[in-house]
């Protein structure tokens, strides 16, 4: 497998972590998670997204702005209306962290199970 030289890899890592921080901070709010859930069902206008929520249009618009700058959604003007859609690739860094840590702990748990089985065998 092709391996990039270290300095580039480190720069990539810094960028990746900053992206993760922003995405993660954006997702740390229940209203914003609700908006992401709503957009999973398809594109929507900000008015539609705001309707079921107990907050002002301006409040929802602010949350939309946070999600947009985190790269999780995109806004588009269609005719006279603002439409919002999900940007699944924006969630990639979060998934990447989850995958990496899941693998990390799965490997360790398996290694611990193997060690305990071996110790049990020796104890006999």
């Amino acid at each position, binding site marked *: 497998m092709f391996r990039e030289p270290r300095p580039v890899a*480190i720069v990539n*890592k*810094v960028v*990746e*972590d*900053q992206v993760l*921080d922003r995405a*993660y*901070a954006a*997702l*740390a709010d*229940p209203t914003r*998670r609700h908006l992401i859930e709503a957009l999973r069902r398809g594109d929507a206008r900000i008015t539609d997204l705001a309707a079921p929520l107990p907050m002002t249009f301006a409040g929802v618009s602010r949350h939309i702005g946070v999600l947009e700058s985190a790269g999780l959604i995109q806004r588009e003007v269609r005719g006279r209306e603002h439409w919002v859609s999900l940007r699944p690739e924006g969630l990639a860094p*979060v998934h990447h*962290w*989850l995958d990496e*840590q*899941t693998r990390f*702990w*799965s*490997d*360790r*748990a*398996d*290694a*611990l*199970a*193997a*060690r*305990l*089985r071996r*110790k*049990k065998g020796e104890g006999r």
Partner: protein
Amino acid sequence: MSETVTVLVQRVMPAPPEVVFDEWLDPEALEEWMCPNPVRVVDVAVDARVGGTVRFDVDDSGTRVLISGQFLTIDRPRLLRFTWTNSNWADPTQASIVNVTFEPAGTDETLMSIEHSLLPTSEFESFHSGWIATFDQLATRLTG
């Protein structure tokens, strides 16, 4: 209620909870199972008390990685809770929390659940200052 980005890994271990729990605090055991091939151990240090640190200095395929944390809860043989930072993450102050529970399962077996949550920066700040406050209280009690 705040839902966070969390990883959950569960396994049934072939030993009773006390035995499995102790594996998490024994440096010799940790050298083996926390640093599986190709990870090479440089140093493992465990200060097994609340507020004590745990540190893994490893060589992961040519990259030196330092993982460190502080114990928050040591409740043998039920619960182990500690902070977790990784030098391989761009922001080495980015903290996360590892919560491990041990439940008896079957005959001499344990259901081990590892829950690893990434703390958002905002929450981390309050967590961090809260933790320092606790630590100060402890120090005051010990010296006072």
